[in-house]
């Protein structure tokens, strides 16, 4: 199992703030995205989306998600 978190507007696109997916072995980001509806995967793979694996920022290239991991998808910020 791995937990996916959708921040900001990505929550509305995914329809949920988080999702648990049944991972048993290390899985590439691309394969994780194929487990989601295509329109959700497309939004998550956008060039402006940043990623945090277990709370630390990571690059999308070569990313592998394992069982027990938490992967957060972070769209462009708008604070203040």
């Amino acid at each position: 199992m791995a937990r996916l978190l959708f921040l900001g507007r990505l929550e509305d696109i995914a329809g949920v703030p988080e999702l648990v997916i049944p991972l048993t072995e290390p899985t590439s980001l691309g394969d994780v995205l194929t487990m989601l509806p295509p329109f959700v995967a497309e939004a998550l793979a956008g060039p402006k989306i940043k990623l945090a694996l277990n709370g630390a920022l990571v690059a999308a290239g070569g990313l592998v998600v394992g069982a027990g991991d938490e992967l957060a998808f972070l769209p462009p910020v708008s604070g203040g």
Partner: protein
Amino acid sequence: MAEVRLADAAFDPAAEIAAFAAAHDIAGGIVSFIGQVRAGDGVEALELRHFEPLTLPGMMGLAAEVEARWALAGLLVIHRTGVMAPGAPIVLVCAAARHRRDAFAAADYAMDHLKSDSWFWKREQANGKWRWIEPRAEDHADLARWG
């Protein structure tokens, strides 16, 4: 040492500024900025979301950067999360310095970076409907001023 807080409930900017001024009485000047929820356009509420592992550490990193860049006697940053009504304070930045220009610049820099370079997502409820606020091009232009 800067004081940086994420507030999940209402705070009182006047009381915070008074306490900050008292704690930094060696400073000749204090610049404070209050951001509040804008009324009008049918806005009923504003919500700020954050991401626990990154938001507060990011704000602390920003505060350290500000303190390294300007000669300050003190720096206070408070940023709300959660749902707020029009008129409610969202953010407070106070910079205390011996000389006013350092205080003005430090507060300005901190606000520009809180708006467009900190881990917050904002949505607004108007006429019963929530919509996410996208970052504005002006915010990025503001950031670019600092090189």
